């Protein structure tokens, strides 16, 4: 009898607090139900699926050992599109000694590591303007000595492209009409600060180099 009573007490110490807690959670749920959806949508914006990663190094999808095509056509579906601040290719000019990685994006972080591409422009092979920029004190230092007819090579995982310089131009740093984004032909446009070697305060212009595509595979969308 005593044992039964003790057992009953123990069971009561389990189910009664659980029942009280469950009723408490129920009351809280009913009270907060009108704002639950709003809280859930706000928390969806603030809370991510996984712990955020703070990368100190920029991304890289460029593989110098890949076997890129030099001509023909390629399917756009087979090409890996780079994410922001990711290296996807290499630009070089033997004559001028230009030899730099190309990053998708043109942030200051990118300019420290290589040549940055404006993300509103096209990748090589896509029949559009490829706009690359770098500081005149760093990777585009030797653009000062570029001449008409010089050749630049852009290597990516999918293709090797050659561009021949057709003209150069000096423009205001705020001038957005210097190049035609919708020209309808593939053109490599490189720019850097101007005058070369000048210090801050007088460097309010940009030096543009325009180069037309000579060779390289064409990317087609199916």
């Amino acid at each position, binding site marked *: 009898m005593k044992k039964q009573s003790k057992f009953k007490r123990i069971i009561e110490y389990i189910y009664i*607090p659980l029942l*009280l807690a469950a009723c408490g959670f129920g009351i809280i749920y009913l009270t907060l139900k009108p704002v639950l959806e709003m809280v859930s949508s706000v928390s969806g*914006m603030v*809370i991510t699926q996984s712990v955020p990663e703070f990368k100190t190094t920029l991304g890289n999808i460029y593989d110098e050992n890949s076997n890129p095509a030099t001509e023909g056509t390629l399917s756009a579906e087979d090409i890996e599109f780079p994410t922001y601040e990711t290296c996807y290719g290499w630009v070089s000019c033997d004559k001028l000694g230009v030899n730099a990685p190309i990053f998708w994006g043109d942030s200051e972080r990118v300019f420290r590591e290589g040549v940055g591409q404006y993300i509103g422009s096209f990748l090589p092979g896509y029949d559009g303007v490829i706009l690359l920029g770098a500081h005149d004190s760093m990777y585009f230092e030797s653009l000062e000595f570029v001449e008409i007819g010089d050749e630049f090579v852009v290597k990516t995982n999918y293709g090797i492209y050659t561009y021949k310089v057709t003209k150069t131009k000096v423009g205001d740093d705020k001038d957005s009409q210097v190049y035609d984004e919708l020209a309808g032909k593939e053109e490599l446009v490189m720019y850097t600060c101007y005058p070369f070697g000048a*210090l*801050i*305060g007088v460097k309010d212009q940009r030096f543009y180099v325009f180069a037309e595509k000579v060779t390289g595979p064409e990317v087609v969308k199916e």
Partner: protein
Amino acid sequence: MMSEKRTETVRHIVAIIFSFLLTLCLAAIFVLIGCKLGIFNEKIILSQLDKTDYSNKVHEAISSNAAEYMMPSGLPESILDGVISKADVKKDCRNAVTMSLKGQGYNPNFSGLEDRFNENVEKYMSDNGIVVEAGTEDGINELLEEIKAEYKRCLTFPFIKYFVKYQSAFNRFFIFAVALLMALTVLIGWMLMKMQRWPHRGVRYISYSTLATAIMLGVPVGALMVSGVHRRINISPEYLYDLITGVLGVDLIVFMVLVFVCIGIFVAELLYIEKLKKVATKLRKRSRRRE
């Protein structure tokens, strides 16, 4: 016999209802205390500044961002050597957070930074035989202002103004709310004791409420700690993320400590129930002897 059993059942149901109300009161009291000691406790924020190495990370961010401003200027990054002092950043970080917690703004003293920067620029110019033109001097001043603005931006703790606003609202009603809830708790506890023939039965219903409160607090806090949701907050830069997640981690620990306090109170109540039961048994035996 039947009516006695019915009376007993009705008494038990009423006692459970009072227990439930007591559970809600106790849970509310513990949540308010947890918020006071945890979420709205500015000492936790100040202690996490050192624990997360906040000022050194801010110094790295300011130095890195300032170097990026140097790149298009034509001046070398070495001009920034010694300009942004770690000691100054540490002092300014603490002052910025402390003043923000008081609801005031903070303007760092840039005289040391300006002097060091201008000294480095002059040395570079004279070492390289560069003549400073009027345009260059304006450009250098503009560059210095950008570096100062970046320094001030990195010191800014964006969430603190919301913290101060909600903390002051919370403090206004905290004492009143806790006092009211304590009064209700005492009243309900007294009624539970008075309803029962034996005091240990009244304390038993109070112990059910205490354990239910521990469950109500412990389950969500435990779930948050295990899931690590406080580490999946989308905040940048990294130094701010480390600080905020550090603060939230400590807040969860504060609530978990309160859960254990609640469990401790429950255990004390169990011991008290045993003591009261012994007293009740003695009284029962004495009254039977008299009969």
